[in-house]
């Protein structure tokens, strides 16, 4: 076992090379809806059981199913109303199960990136060939369903294994979301190829907030706004990133969708915000800031 991921160097928050975003924006704000399918009868995995109750876990399954049948459509309408595109963390089997969802995403000009095949198929314990096979198949499926290239990655249920990041780079993935170590994009060290990390979030993610921290809707909106306020202020010094990860089965519930509406109205009401996608943030950072960051690290973060 490893004692640390080993994928990045220490980069103190002070003295970093300045990041600038397009049009003088202080903050790159992106929304990452996790559009998922949890199988009714998935195979077991030694490190994690897919469901808490015996299969079929009707309560768990039907709750997630709500996201695709109902929640997604509500969430997408709210985002469209505010002109906020999504960067979809996609269980790519959704392309086969529910093509109408993919159609709606494409119609709204959303990015699709991979969140594995199903949220009930973990990377825990896969060998490199198996991981590679999933990444390749996911790339083909996204291309076939949307015409898009696969640039981004979040391992299904964040179940990455020790070698996953290396394989992502080798398979041409440009950005990973598996690490939560920063509020800016950072270089990622891999055995070959190139990979960067851009900020995802488990702090203002609806799953930990609404399910684990038992947050009511209004409080959820207040937390998201507080996160935004601070990153917007700090972005005056050097550009920050705020990701708002969503799960339609939670945020698309009728008692919660107005909280999303509230947060997005607040965010787009600020003028120095870059409403970006994951791919756009990764491309901009790679082109304009990656080399400088690497030199600064090589020089010992002076």
């Amino acid at each position, binding site marked *: 076992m490893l004692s640390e991921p080993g994928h990045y160097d220490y980069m103190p928050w002070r003295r970093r090379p300045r990041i600038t975003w397009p049009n003088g924006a202080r903050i790159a704000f992106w929304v990452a809806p996790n559009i998922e399918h949890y199988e009714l009868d998935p*195979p077991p995995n030694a490190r994690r059981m897919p469901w808490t109750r015996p299969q079929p876990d009707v309560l768990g399954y*039907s709750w997630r199913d*709500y996201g695709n*049948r109902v929640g997604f459509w509500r969430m997408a309408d709210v985002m469209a109303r505010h002109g906020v595109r999504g960067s979809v963390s996609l269980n790519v*089997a959704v392309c086969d199960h529910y093509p109408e969802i993919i159609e709606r995403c494409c119609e709204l000009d959303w990015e699709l990136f991979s969140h594995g095949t199903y949220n009930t198929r973990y990377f825990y*314990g896969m060998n490199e*060939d198996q991981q590679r096979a999933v990444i390749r198949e996911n790339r083909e499926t996204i291309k076939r369903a949307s015409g898009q290239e696969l640039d981004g990655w979040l391992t299904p249920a964040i179940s990455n294994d020790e070698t996953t990041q290396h394989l992502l780079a080798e398979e041409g993935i440009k950005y990973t979301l598996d690490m939560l170590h920063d509020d800016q994009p950072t270089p990622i060290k891999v055995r070959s190829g190139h990979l960067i990390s851009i900020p995802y979030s488990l702090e203002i993610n609806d799953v930990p907030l609404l399910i684990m921290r038992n947050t009511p809707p209004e409080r959820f909106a207040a937390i998201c706004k507080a996160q935004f306020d601070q990153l917007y202020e700090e972005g005056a010094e050097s550009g920050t990133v705020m990701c708002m990860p969503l799960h339609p089965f939670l945020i698309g*519930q009728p008692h919660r969708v107005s909280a999303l509406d509230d947060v997005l109205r607040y965010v787009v009401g600020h003028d120095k915000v870059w409403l970006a996608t994951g791919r756009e943030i990764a491309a901009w950072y790679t082109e304009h800031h990656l080399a400088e960051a690497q030199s600064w690290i090589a020089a010992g973060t002076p």
Partner: protein
Amino acid sequence: MKGLPEDYLYYPARRRGMDHEIYPFRALPKAQPVTWPNGARIALCIAVHMGHFPMDMPLKPFIAPGGMERPYPSYWDYTLRDYGNWDYTLRDYGNRIGVYRLMNSLTVRGMPATALLSAILARRYPALMDDLAEARWEIACAGLDMGRLHHSGVPLDQERATVQEAAALVRARFGTSVRGWHSPAHSESSDTLRLVAEAGFSFTTGWANDDVPYVMVTDAGRLICMPLSQDLSDQRMLHQQHLPTEDFTKAILTAHQTLDREAEATGSGRILVVPITPWLMGVPHRIRAFNAMLDSMMARGSVWPATMGQIADHWRAQNPN
């Protein structure tokens, strides 16, 4: 190199639609528009979880929400419980007192309710059954009791006997008008729906995946699946998440507002099912919040207070296929 078994990357149910045959996929915008009596925008169903929790209920394979969490014999859980946030939540209390407060609140407002009833209560508390009948509450069968959960570890014959016994108990008191089923703790085996259809039920509620009814297909016939949230329920928010009462009532009112606006925008009626529990909402310090919530909902207007069976009938008449 060792890895996971080969079939871990094999997906036998990866195809258009669901990964099972129980119901087809349907996106909310594709749901057939429905109208309610008097053009109401919202069909409002108060669904009351009337469970009986045996003190010796099994704690495997999981403890049902509200189940005995303290060591046997937990008089605390069985009769009354201090949840640590200074709320008192109660089981048997709910069937003795809490449910009467709810009945009073609803009756005085002319509102019906649907009781999701542990069938054993039909035998245990005949006086309560008489009062439910007089209040014109709809009775739906919620299994035998909270200790007899339906899950894949239960042998088929045993599960069939449980469904049949539960159906017989509620029908012995309320007749064949009992058409609705709810599996206790929203838990089922792969056979439950078939056994429920076999026992002559016409609708089920507990799959928390839609705001609009849809049809489930079993080998023993069809069932209408009616909406029932767990996420937005007093058991979830007050008992499991320890949230203040006002967070629950506010969430219900927000959901009402969202659904009401959707009904207005789409021209299709919407359904709001409010799942409540006598040992939670029926306690003295919460009942006024419950009353205020009901009054706010009715004050919004264009509400049709109905039982789940009535809503199912209206939906079915407009969705005959």
